[in-house]
């Protein structure tokens, strides 16, 4: 499997081809290079996956020598393929391929076609590096690289007059960067602790340690890693960028901001799971932040009118569930939600994209309606996805979310109820979305008239994704309902790599069936409420908004967090920067420290020059005084 390097390099090649020749070569070339490279990568990933499964310990380590290093510090250039990364590779290249395919239709008319595929390919490359990298710095390469691609793709329509995409891209990059700092500091701490940054070595060394109490290097490192996750995976408080990121093309939202990149935080934690298990404090933080995010974002999603914004907040919320699962020591559960979420959220986005495409880039839910007839494929697939996300029994969402909620309930009932509340909100807004878009009367007749089903390159991926979304249950089905959580066993080699004794996850006690029943029942209730609230148009919703204006405004404005950040952080920083510059740099250092001495020198020169009166008597007098001075020195 030495040729595993081909897997990431193929998309890179696609990137280079499209970057260099994308403009001059035709669309066919771009599509071939862009889609083909990912398709090939997918095929190779499948091969690699199989080889991995056959390998002892389900683990392939491939090394290509040293990447960077100095002194005692050395980072190998190497890949690890194990169940965790293998599955991620499949998701990335698989869903990635579908979305590439979908983009051929969706972006067909765009003038930046070549550029688009270049970026997308580059993203796949970085994402693959992220999951395959055998060391933290290599993972970090992918980690930051996907951020870059996200930045580039969000700001893809850079020349729009209102600047929104560019601003959103900037915002995404910066919020991500805050998280990246966390990862960076985490790496520093780990190197200080273990003297290596190779993931395997760290885990092996960590495996010899018992659970760590107090605030040591390890806790610091894991907390910092989690900070990184909050940035990349849009958790509180760094989630703000993700809703704005919807300014990018819809397939990008599907691939990057729903299915793959945003889940890399989960990947990181699962990858370092043994380490996190050593630091209970961090685990608590993760769980609580996850639960809070799940609930918080879900409430905001209720009142959003932009179809993609709803989905974005939904993504944030779902990511919160994943972290809730991780924090509750359900690494496999959390990751399983990543897996299922990848399918149905990608599907939701692509479906939304299909709608948007049909309506000529109309994204306002309030102007949609009645599309069910016009766009059957989209409608059906969207319905499946909606069912998944609200955890309709039998769907993959049901399987993954309820496992998480169950595990959370073991950790703390409060977490569980937060999760349930979030699930209720989810059910409500998803049905709201679906009802507003597909059911009821068309609210914009003109747009409705021109609406049409999308071309095959777009619908085929929808169908495939829908199948995937439903079929993901094959990997895990709650034991309480007669299934087995196969993915847990499957991931075991990754999750407990290096751990001396597989301590496993506490998953005894409680009543999983009851827990699931409560949450599902409540969610379905809210789903019905959502449907009933909007099936007759907007009147009811408007009435409710009028009734609770404060609440509505609070939610519609996303709790004013953006404004708060602006007022509390951005503006003070700029103000402080200005102060440093104008007051400190220009006046204190340059003025008092540099120019003032210069001016004083000059002024004293002016003063001394006055002694040169031009009168020769005066000169002789000075000489006389000089003589006096000399005589004094000689005679004293």
């Amino acid at each position, binding site marked *: 499997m030495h040729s595993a390097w081909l897997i990431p390099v193929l998309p890179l090649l696609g990137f280079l081809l499209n970057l260099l020749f994308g403009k001059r070569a035709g669309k066919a070339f771009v599509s071939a290079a862009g889609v083909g490279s990912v398709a090939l990568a997918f095929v190779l990933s499948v091969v690699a996956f199989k080889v991995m499964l056959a390998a002892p310990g389900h683990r392939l380590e491939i090394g290509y020598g040293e990447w960077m290093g100095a002194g005692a510090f050395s980072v190998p250039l190497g890949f690890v393929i194990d169940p965790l990364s293998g599955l991620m590779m499949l998701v990335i290249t698989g869903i990635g391929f579908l979305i590439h395919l979908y983009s051929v239709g969706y972006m067909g008319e765009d003038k930046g076609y070549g550029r688009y595929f270049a970026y997308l390919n580059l993203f796949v490359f970085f994402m693959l590096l992220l999951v395959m990298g055998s060391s933290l710095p290599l993972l970090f390469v992918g980690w930051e690289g996907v951020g870059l691609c996200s930045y580039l793709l969000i700001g893809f329509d850079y020349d729009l007059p209102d600047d929104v995409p560019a601003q959103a891209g900037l915002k995404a990059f910066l919020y991500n960067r805050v998280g990246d700092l966390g990862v960076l500091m985490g790496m520093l701490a780990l190197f200080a602790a273990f003297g290596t940054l190779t993931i395997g070595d760290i885990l092996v060394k960590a495996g010899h340690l018992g659970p760590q109490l107090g605030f040591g290097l390890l806790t610091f490192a894991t907390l910092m890693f989690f900070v990184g996750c909050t940035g990349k995976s849009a958790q509180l408080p760094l989630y703000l960028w993700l809703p704005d990121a919807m300014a990018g093309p819809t397939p990008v939202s599907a691939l990057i901001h729903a299915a793959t990149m945003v889940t890399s935080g989960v990947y990181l934690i699962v990858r370092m799971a043994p380490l996190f298990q050593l630091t209970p404090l961090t685990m608590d933080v993760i769980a609580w932040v996850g639960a809070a995010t799940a609930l918080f974002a879900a409430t905001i999603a209720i009142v959003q009118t932009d179809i993609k914004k709803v989905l974005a907040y939904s993504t944030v919320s779902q990511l919160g569930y994943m972290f809730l699962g991780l924090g509750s020591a359900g690494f496999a559960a959390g990751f399983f939600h990543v897996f299922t979420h990848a399918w149905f959220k990608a599907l939701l986005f692509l479906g939304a994209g299909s709608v948007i495409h049909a309506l000529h880039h109309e994204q306002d839910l309030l102007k949609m309606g009645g599309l069910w007839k016009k766009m059957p494929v989209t409608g059906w697939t969207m319905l499946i996805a909606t069912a998944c996300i609200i955890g309709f029994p039998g769907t993959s969402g049901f399987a993954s979310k309820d496992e998480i909620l169950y595990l959370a309930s073991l950790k703390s009932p409060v977490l569980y109820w937060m999760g349930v509340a979030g699930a209720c909100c989810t059910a409500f807004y998803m049905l709201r979305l679906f009802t507003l878009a597909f059911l009821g009367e068309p609210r914009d007749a003109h747009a409705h008239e021109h609406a049409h089903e999308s071309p095959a390159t777009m619908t085929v991926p929808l169908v495939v994704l829908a199948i995937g979304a439903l079929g993901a249950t094959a990997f895990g089905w709650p034991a309480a309902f007669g299934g087995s959580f196969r993915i847990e066993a499957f991931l075991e080699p990754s999750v407990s790599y290096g751990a001396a004794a597989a301590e496993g996850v506490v998953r005894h006690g409680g009543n999983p069936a009851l827990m699931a029943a409560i949450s599902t029942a409540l969610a379905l209730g809210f789903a019905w409420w959502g449907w009933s609230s909007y099936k007759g148009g907007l009147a009811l919703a408007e009435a409710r908004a009028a009734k609770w204006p404060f609440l509505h405004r609070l939610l519609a404005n996303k709790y004013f967090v953006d404004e708060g950040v602006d007022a509390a952080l951005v503006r003070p920083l700029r103000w402080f920067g200005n102060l440093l510059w104008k007051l400190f740099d220009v006046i204190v250092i340059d003025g008092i420290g540099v120019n003032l001495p210069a001016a004083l020198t000059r002024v004293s020169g002016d003063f001394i*020059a006055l002694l*040169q*009166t*031009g*009168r*020769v*008597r005066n000169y*002789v*007098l000075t000489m006389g005084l000089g003589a006096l001075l000399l005589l004094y020195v000689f005679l004293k």
Partner: protein
Amino acid sequence: MAHLLSGGLQGYVAVALLLFVIGLATVLLRRTLLMQFMGMELMLNAANVALLAFARWRGGDVQGTVTYLMIIAVAACEAAVGLALVIGLHRMRGTTDADRTASLKQ
């Protein structure tokens, strides 16, 4: 103090030094170039007085007189150049007041 007046070496040297100071004072206090010029002549003369007095007390050293000769030649030379300068200045500026020829300054 009394032996300063008795015609001893100290008296001569004292006279010489005082003469030197008076010459310098002339240069310092008088504005007229010619007066300052005379002050300088006094200063040179003061040196002569001291020189010959020392020569006398050094056993009538002939070197003293020889040096004296040189000095008066130098004084004459200075007089020549100095007076030429005063004349030149007077031609150019129409003044022999040192304080009025102060256009070069600072």
